[in-house]
């Protein structure tokens, strides 16, 4: 409950004080919780990690992004056009910035999904590769290997929390841009 309250207090200023934003933090808090639990469950041996598959992470990222883009273009068209040009951009750079911002908006669900997948895969791969060497190495090195595995597991636990937080916060910020 403390964690959820802290998250709510964290996301609320990011979303802004508009009346239409009431209750919206719960969407992002549930997204955070889903990714967090999936990441943590994957750290147990022989447990299938859902968030290491692009199908799952893209399923989380793509519909939300599509919803915000469609809503934004239909209801706040001028606001969306404004966001393509950051305030104070030098005049010669404006056409390039518009193209870059358009591409940035289009690849957002991909980057969100791939960021989570790649981080989870990298950690799990390292743990697996090191673990595979266990039966073949000598006894003195085994102690070092076990210590390395424990440290990596702690790191992976931190990555699990951080990546779920990053996913939820970025989604919050992207939704803020649309409104």
């Amino acid at each position, binding site marked *: 409950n403390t964690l959820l309250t802290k998250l709510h207090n964290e996301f609320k200023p990011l979303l802004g004080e508009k009346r239409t934003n009431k209750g919206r933090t719960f969407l992002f808090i549930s997204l955070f919780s889903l990714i967090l639990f999936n990441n943590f469950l994957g750290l147990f041996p022989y447990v299938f990690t859902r968030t290491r598959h692009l199908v799952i992470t893209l399923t989380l990222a793509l519909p939300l992004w599509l919803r915000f883009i469609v809503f934004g273009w239909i209801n706040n068209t*001028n*606001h969306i*056009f*404004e*966001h*393509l*040009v*950051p*305030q*104070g*951009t*030098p*005049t010669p750079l*404006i*056409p390039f910035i*518009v*193209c870059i911002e358009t591409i940035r908006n289009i690849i957002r669900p991909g980057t969100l999904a791939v960021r989570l997948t790649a981080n989870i895969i990298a950690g799990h791969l390292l743990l697996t590769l090191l673990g595979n060497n266990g039966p073949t190495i000598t006894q003195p090195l085994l102690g070092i290997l076990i210590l390395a595995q424990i440290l990596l597991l702690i790191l992976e636990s931190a990555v699990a929390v951080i990546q779920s937080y990053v996913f939820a916060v970025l989604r919050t910020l992207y939704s803020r*841009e649309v409104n």
Partner: protein
Amino acid sequence: MAGDSHVDESQFKGISKYFNSTTSTGRANVAKATYATIGLLVLFFSLKPKKKPTTN
């Protein structure tokens, strides 16, 4: 993105009143103009007649 509530619009004269990177309307207009230019270029190159190779 920062709003433009503190920007003095009277500083802009002529075309920069409608196309600038400071006010909300200016930024939206330059983005629309860029998209329109790209659209026109795409249209021009797609409708341009292609040169037929001469055969003897």
